[in-house]
């Protein structure tokens, strides 16, 4: 018995000692996550990043509202500028980081591992262009934002906010670099242009042109140089070149405007737009708004107008608790809310390009083809064609339109940028025409917002840099203008 005990104790002690002497136990592959891949597929990262563009071009958070293209029907707080703080984190942690990863991987020594997605040049070029596209929207919304120090992960936990002038300079340089990378070596995962380097060049140069015009008041010479360089590189040349996000009919990739109208009716064409179009007998009225469902009842709050045999009414903009039934106002066009593959998701249009040319002439920039009036008319015609107005109607309208000037050009551009929320708001801030009245029931601020305020998470997570940036702008709210907005 005693020997038995001794044996058992001995055995267990030895086994325990064995375990004790084990520093580690080999579990093999057990902790390798089977649910996701650990090696990037850069093409798929680009697809993922591109899928974030709808949240920019078909966005309803303030762009279309501040430009007074669209009105909210029942819950009008956003039209009345209720939200001051907007969060840009989603851009940085989402598509921007995906694109930066593609760039980093292609710049690393293992770049060859990612060649199945396309050439290094195409991957880097397209990634840079998409990055700039999104940074452009970000800086036009918030002003000074992290740019040069951003997207470095744990290497820079508190990125500094670059002044907008520095961001613009950086972005223009980045576009030039990107354009030089585009070598036509194919790119998988590119559902926008299918790896077509020429189209990407066109996209990049049009973007440069738009950026150049933004800078026209604060840096006229720099703007002119960038503008000419863009034209030399090749911008959009007709409506056939229009860059519209390729929505599908399948639910996963359909136009967000469709989803918004699936069971709710919260948005309508604004009275500002409808009344303007009606006052100018603009045939786009029938394309920008739907006829009202029932034009009966209280007319004290709504302006009904007759056009082309139908009744239209814009939803009064910026009135809290208006108490107006949805059926009494004009919805957004069914081409957007029920189909949406070809409308409501425009990145850059030919009409925009024409108006930029017109403006360049009005500013007296030399060495450009055509003249202000011609480009102005081309822009108007392009916009009409874009929205499906017949050539006859468009020509009739052109005959009645006032000659080109900064004011008329700006107003026509505002109309042409319908549903291009962020562009419309930025251009209106810059050009200051048409004259828009701030919301009657404004909840905050002193007028139409001139920028978005920084989000609460940035204020707490990056406090020092955030506070430094805030100190540089006149007052912490949405009334202070961004760098390129001089008046």
């Amino acid at each position, binding site marked *: *018995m005693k020997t038995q*005990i001794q044996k*058992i104790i001995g055995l267990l*002690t030895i*086994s*325990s000692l064995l*375990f*004790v002497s084990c*520093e*580690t*136990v*080999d*579990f093999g592959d*057990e*902790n390798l996550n089977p*649910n996701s*891949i*650990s090696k990037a597929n850069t093409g*798929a*990262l680009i*697809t*993922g*990043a591109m*899928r974030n563009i709808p949240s920019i071009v078909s966005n309803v958070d303030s762009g279309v509202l501040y430009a007074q293209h669209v009105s909210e029907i029942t819950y009008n707080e956003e039209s009345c500028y209720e939200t001051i*703080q907007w969060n*840009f*984190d989603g851009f940085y*942690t989402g598509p921007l*980081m995906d694109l*930066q990863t593609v760039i980093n991987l292609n710049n690393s020594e293992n770049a060859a591992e990612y060649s199945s997605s396309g050439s290094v040049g195409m991957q880097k070029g397209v990634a840079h262009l998409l990055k700039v596209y999104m940074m452009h929207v970000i800086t036009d919304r918030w002003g000074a*934002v*992290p740019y040069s120090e*951003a997207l*470095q*992960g*744990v290497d*820079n936990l508190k*990125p500094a906010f670059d002044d907008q002038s520095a961001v613009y300079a950086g972005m223009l340089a980045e576009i030039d670099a990107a354009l030089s990378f585009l070598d036509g070596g194919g790119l998988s*995962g590119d559902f926008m242009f299918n790896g077509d380097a020429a189209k990407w060049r066109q996209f990049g140069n049009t973007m440069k042109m738009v950026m150049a015009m933004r800078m026209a008041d604060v840096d006229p010479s720099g703007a002119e140089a960038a503008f000419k360089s863009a034209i030399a590189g090749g911008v959009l040349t007709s409506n056939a070149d229009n860059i519209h996000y390729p929505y*599908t009919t*399948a*639910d*996963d*990739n359909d136009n967000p405007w469709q989803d918004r109208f699936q*069971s*709710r*009716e919260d948005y309508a064409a604004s009275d500002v737009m409808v009344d303007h179009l009606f006052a100018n007998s603009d045939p786009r009225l029938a394309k920008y708004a739907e006829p009202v469902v*029932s034009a*009966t*009842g209280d007319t004290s709050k709504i302006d009904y107008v007759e056009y082309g045999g139908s009744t239209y009414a814009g939803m009064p903009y910026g009135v*809290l*608790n208006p*108490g107006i*039934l949805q*059926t009494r106002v004009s919805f957004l066009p069914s081409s957007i809310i029920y189909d949406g593959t070809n409308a409501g998701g425009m990145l850059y249009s030919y009409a925009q390009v024409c108006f930029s040319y017109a403006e360049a002439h009005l500013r007296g920039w030399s060495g450009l083809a055509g003249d202000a009036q011609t480009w102005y008319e081309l822009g108007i015609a392009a916009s009409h064609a874009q929205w499906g107005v017949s050539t006859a109607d468009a020509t009739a309208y052109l005959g009645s339109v006032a000659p080109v000037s900064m004011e008329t050009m700006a107003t026509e551009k505002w109309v042409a940028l319908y549903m291009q929320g962020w562009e419309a708001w930025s251009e209106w801030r810059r050009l200051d025409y048409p004259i828009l009245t701030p919301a009657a*029931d*404004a909840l905050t601020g002193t007028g139409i917002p001139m920028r978005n305020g920084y989000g*609460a998470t*940035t204020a707490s*997570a990056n406090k020092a840099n955030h506070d430094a940036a805030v100190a540089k702008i006149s007052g912490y709210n949405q009334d202070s203008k961004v760098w390129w907005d001089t008046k």
Partner: protein
Amino acid sequence: MKTNLKKFLALSFMIMFQWGLAQTSVSGTVSDSSGVPLPGATVIVAGTSNGVTTDFDGVYSISASEGDVLSVSYVGFVTQNVTIGASATINVTLVSDNALEEVVVTALGITREAKSLGYAQQKVEGSALTKTKELDFKTALAGKVAGVQVISGPSSTFESSAIRLRGEQDVLYVVDGIKMSSTDINTDNIDNITILKGAAATALYGAEARSGVIVITSKKAKAGETYITVDHNTVASNISRLHPYQNEYGGGYDQSWDTFAYNPATDPASWAAFNGQNIPYYAADESWGPRLDGTLARHWDSWIPNHPNFGELRGWSPNPNNVKNFFETGMKSATSVSFGKGGDDYSFRATGRATQNALPVPNASRDTYDVNINGSVDLTDKFTMYTSLNARIQNTDNFVSSGYGSLQGNFSQWWQRQLDMDRLRDNYHYEGAFYTWNRRSARNARPQYWDAPHYEQYQNTNNNENSTYSGNFGFDYQIADGVSANVEVNRRAYNRTSNSRNYIGKNTLSTQAGYSEGSFVSEQNEFRARLNYSKAITDKFDVNALVGYAAKQFRSINTSASTSGGLAIPDFYTIANSVDKPGYSTYRTNNSGRAAYSSVSLGYDSMLYLDGSYRFDWSSTAAADNNRIETYSLTGSFLFDKLVNLDGVTFGKLRASYAEAPIFPGTYATSPTFGSGTAYGSLASLAVPNTLANPQLTGGIRKETEYGIEMKFLNNRLGFDLTYFDREDSGLPVAVSAAGSTGYTGLSVNSKITSSTGVEVMLSGTPIQTEDVRWDVSVNFATLEKMVDFIYPGIERNILNSWLSWSSMDLQEIVGEEWGMLYGRKRLKDDNGNWVYYASGNHRYENNQLLGNVMPNYTGGITSNLTYKNWDLAIGIDFQDGGLYHSVTDMFSMAAGLHEWTAGKNDKGNQKRDPVSAGGGIHQVGVYADGSVADFYRAPDSWAWGNWTRDDLWLVDASFVKLRQVRLGYNFDSDKLSNTPFTGIDIALIGTNLAILSETTDWGDYRGAKTPGLDPSELGSGWSGGNYASEGGQLPSARSFGLNVALKF
């Protein structure tokens, strides 16, 4: 001859003398401390073999002399020595020593004497948990254990409660050695539970148990007993507390009436008669509409074609009970049968229980079936085998969840107060089409925002079936004297399938049908082997030691699929019927671990104990080159009442313990990957995850120190147990929130340091103890303060939950503050405490302000058990002070004009909702930004919509005192049942969730008194998840009454 006679005579004389002395008969009664006589007690004259036992009445009679010592003893009592004096009658009272020799189940199922434990633990008898037959184990525990805070799930739903033990939620539940989920425990089968609170108590379990273990021991048949028991209860529950609604104004956005305008071009000719009739604003889901003064109007159901009500004009009148009318009486009935038989060398018990539970919410029900079997056999006198098997099968129809957009959200946040619930129930589905109160207009029956509430409950159905099978198998072998071995394997397999459908029909809100299905399968297997050694080295010194090994493995697969784009063939709910490519995802988890552990306990003279334990754990979830952690503990206890004799003190113990328990990172946390996104057509999309993974993530460590003192007085009639603990968690792996512009919102680092301290007190006493009456009371109380000491260099805040409200309110950890701070928008006050207003009349506010801490200051409970002859009355109360959450229900019920505060009279005596120019409105007093005085009246809807985003308006102080359980029972005497087949009958009336005895009844600002609404002790997890910081829409609480009958054969 002569000498022999002398000797004989002397001897006889001595004998006679002795006999003369011995023949003094001493008698008396031996009884216990409550006066109950003890039959069969042993009375011995000390030092002799002269002994007797007491008779049936506890009476003894023994021959002894004055000066002798009588030693009186009885099993379970402390032996008493009494010196015989002049009196021939000596009555002896024996003190029970139960409390001292009490045995407790501790870590790994090892039983220890309670007196030898150096750490805080609490034992709760199974009968204490089943007094009112609650199905949810955690709810049954409320108010019974010091240091346990129970956050009840809404009691009119199936949501289970949550437990925080010393502030942490990752408590382990172990039933007979098998790790179980707390929702799978059959409370009726519990014999007792031991709550091991701190790291020292749970050190033998290793890393996963550091926040506490609830060790549950199932009922087993005892030697010599044979029984069959049948237990049945039926309980009815009804909604007990509704949100305070106003009943003065009906649905709409303003108080003026819209009228019908007959349009001959589009309306039928018969509608000409409707011209001019009052038309409510059906599309509004708020109640700022016309006054409920009986004006005739065309209610929503007067537009249903071919309906008898079509065209009917009815009074616009209050329906104060409409929400209450939606709910029914919920019925729960449970029947269980158990049988068991035990002998000297075997024991077998089996029980089966069937429960049907229908909620007060219509069309929601759950069936649960439990089977628990256990048995053990002593194959030889050294070898015992044991096994247990448990099964639980559960089927739930229409699990009702909390959160924004839920049913409660409908009734208390977006509703029209005049609606008649009976008409809704009868007419929402008529002639194949659906009708809602929220129609878009008189002519358009499509809903604006809401279907009828019955539609949600009866058409958009969901179903959930789950089953848990668990069991163990093991043996104990007595190798030699004092040396034994135990080997055990156990397994738990869980399987859940669920599905839900999104129905569409004529006039439904959703126009795209959908169906989703999911399945979750998990299994866990464990193997344990242990060698025990127990020896008394000297008669004062004893040693207990053990050494053991464990291996475990866990796997799970979670699959979900959903249709996309609608159903190709209507009403055919299956994934294959999806219009577009269905969404599909699978998530797998695998992890395994190994452990080697040992512990040594030294005891000296039953007075001083010293324990130490050490455990190594290896886990697959740690970094491969560094996957071992060590957990150790050291505890000591000193029973000072043995050394120092204090009057009235029957027990006194001082305890101290220290433990270090490291933690492993979560599964796959060290394995960085890319996240899959939605594809574009046939192109897959990937995304860089928002949290930067750290391949070198190591375990952090918890260090916990505990001190305690336990004392009992007055023959154990009064006792208290006081514990102080101090815990520091450092190097914890944590996803630290980073500025988004870095590209990541979170980094996985090992840097967080938090510390918790608290005091736990348990007071118990038996104020009354007589032959007929016994009253036991216990009170427990615990405080907790958890502080965040450090997060990461350069980071002072970590966001735990963001966007809890529409104003970016979030729950944060902040260095130097208590854990769990709500930060959001706060109305601005100037330096003199005046409210500051915008020109519009809205409160000025500041963002990112501290709103309050979500953790309570203290929690506790009172349990009382009173028995009088055959009657028993048990009462359970639990309470909490502090704790904060944000209520979306309060917020939207005000904004939508449903809350009673938005109607009624203002301080001028006029209706608040009268126009401000006519003396109505809510009085606002303060200053404007420039310092000028602000004194004006604001229409309630403008006030509500202008201020709803100021988060400090909607904070709820969750302090409460709750009468949770009452039981009144009668137990029949067994001799009265001798003519029946029963050996015992117990009937009881049971009630749960009876009343909130105390709660916050003031808003804390100019709004004044607050009528209580939602139950502050209940909080659903549907909005802020496991942090319980915010309520997004919650079903009301329900009160239950029922009857329980237990029969024993």
